[in-house]
């Protein structure tokens, strides 16, 4: 009896600690959203206030009107959509190839892909820039999109996931005369739905937040993505905290919404990757 009361108070204390922690973690986001409605002067009060004096939309209007934020949004959406789709195609095809076929050079190609995940981007980014420059891809949409077309680690993930599909299924479909293409489309794809959602969400967020390569590749304003626009805003308008908060809100909120809707897949992604 005494033990259960002790356990109960333990849980209550724990719950309070977790709530306090949550406030600390969530506070920057709450502050950001509320501040994006503030006037510039409101950032210069000696005692900052959480709530804006009035919920005015001027900051967003300025970002969209004067700062052309909608076109940056468009660029980010184009790049993200393209890279999510190419990633799906590349990853699912190769994952299946490595999981269910035996062919000459299989382990060589697999090790090639696996070892590429260990090469840090710092080592390859300057040669990649020079390569793109020689191919006249710098400051073009193609140049911006190509280096992020697939995630090598996802290939590894897909191969592991697809190995669990019984070979007997595939063999029997083959005996019934189904083509390799058909087997892939009607047996493999439907059975890897969790994998598809995990790599889609992961890639979506990676592409949306991508910064290093876009920073090097893009010079002109018409190709600017959201993170680049924010970096530009930060360096050019040193004092316009109101605009910065509104821009950060525009960048972060869509990702947070997608994350909350699909949060289950993030946890699954960790367990799928088998890293513990």
């Amino acid at each position, binding site marked *: 009896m005494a033990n259960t009361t002790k356990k109960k108070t333990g849980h209550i204390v724990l719950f309070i600690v977790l709530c306090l*922690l949550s406030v600390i973690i969530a506070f920057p986001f709450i502050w950001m959203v509320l501040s994006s409605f503030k006037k510039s002067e409101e950032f210069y009060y000696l005692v900052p206030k959480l709530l804006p004096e009035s919920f005015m939309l001027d900051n967003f209007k300025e970002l969209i009107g004067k700062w052309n934020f909608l076109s940056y949004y468009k660029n980010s959406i184009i790049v993200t959509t393209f890279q999510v789709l190419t990633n799906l195609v590349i990853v699912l095809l190769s994952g299946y190839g490595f999981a269910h076929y035996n062919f000459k050079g299989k382990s060589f190609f697999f090790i*090639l892909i696996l070892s590429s995940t260990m090469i840090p981007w710092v080592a390859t980014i300057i040669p990649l820039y020079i390569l793109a420059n020689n191919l006249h891809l710098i400051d073009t949409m193609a140049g911006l999109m190509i280096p992020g077309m697939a995630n090598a680690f996802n290939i590894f993930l897909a191969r592991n996931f697809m190995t669990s599909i019984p070979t007997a299924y595939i063999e029997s479909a083959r005996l019934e005369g189904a083509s390799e293409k058909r087997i892939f489309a009607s047996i493999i794809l439907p059975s890897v739905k969790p994998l598809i959602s995990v790599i889609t969400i992961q890639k979506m967020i990676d592409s949306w937040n991508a910064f290093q390569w876009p920073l090097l590749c893009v010079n002109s304003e018409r190709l600017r993505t959201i993170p680049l626009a924010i970096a530009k805003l930060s360096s050019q308008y040193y004092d316009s905290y109101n605009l910065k908060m509104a821009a*950060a809100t525009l960048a972060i909120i869509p990702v947070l919404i997608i994350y909350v809707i699909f949060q289950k897949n993030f946890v699954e992604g960790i367990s799928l990757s088998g890293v513990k």
Partner: protein
Amino acid sequence: MKNKSLRKGINWMKVAPYFFIAPAVIYIICVTIIPMIMALPISFTNWSALSPRKKFVGLANYKTLIHDKDFWSSMLVMAKFFIYVPLVMAAGLGAALLLNTKTPGTKFFRVLFYAPVITSTVAAAILFEWFFQPTYGLFNAILKFFHLPVSGWIYDAKSAVGSVIFFKVWKGFGACMLIYLAGLQDVGGEIKEASYVDGASSWQSFWHITFPLLKPSHTYLLLTNIIGVFMIFQETYMLEGPLNSTRTVVNYIYEKGFESFKMGYASAMSFVLFLIIMVVTIIQQRASKLDLT
């Protein structure tokens, strides 16, 4: 007819896997393998983005690097950032332990604690830039409210690295938490239960049983976070301290390569950094026998 389709089928069976893996292999070769092969030769030239001419200069870039004070000071800045690794792992482990209980709402807390991980570093940094503002910013207002000494945060060379680490821990601990939670599920409750029966206090049972059993999680997080520190760029690009106090090696490589257009020299620096990262990775994997395949 039957014969023909059979023959076609056999051929296709042999060719099919290459079709399946071709896009991936071509992509990896173009985007990672070729650049990797190019990296060392470029570092032996004086390549500059401004002129198409490039000249072989041998080891000149590496000789310059040895005497470049700015390079070594950026190495020192990077070294300071290693404090981040134990901090973020401890925060992640703490959060995981708090959430590995039957308290209601743990799922909600888990989702919330992971949220900073998925947000754009650039956008989150712009937010903290204001929090760190010494006169009007939020953090000093909070310190003043509790009558605590205020700080210059990123605007003071002495506290700049610490401030960026603070930001990084807020942003990154959720990722460590998820890995530790997965690890804790493997450890399970039974061993812990047994140790309670033996009369171990919960601190003892954590320190002597749970903590060592989490070794796979520790090694994985140690390696990925150390490599992450070697490559800190976005945070310090956005939250720049005065007097180059937060200029890491990658920031310096960016400066040389893409602001001064000395790509040969920048390449030499990134090759050195690459070698360091590889050595650390190999040591780590040998030490932990981490099996990737």
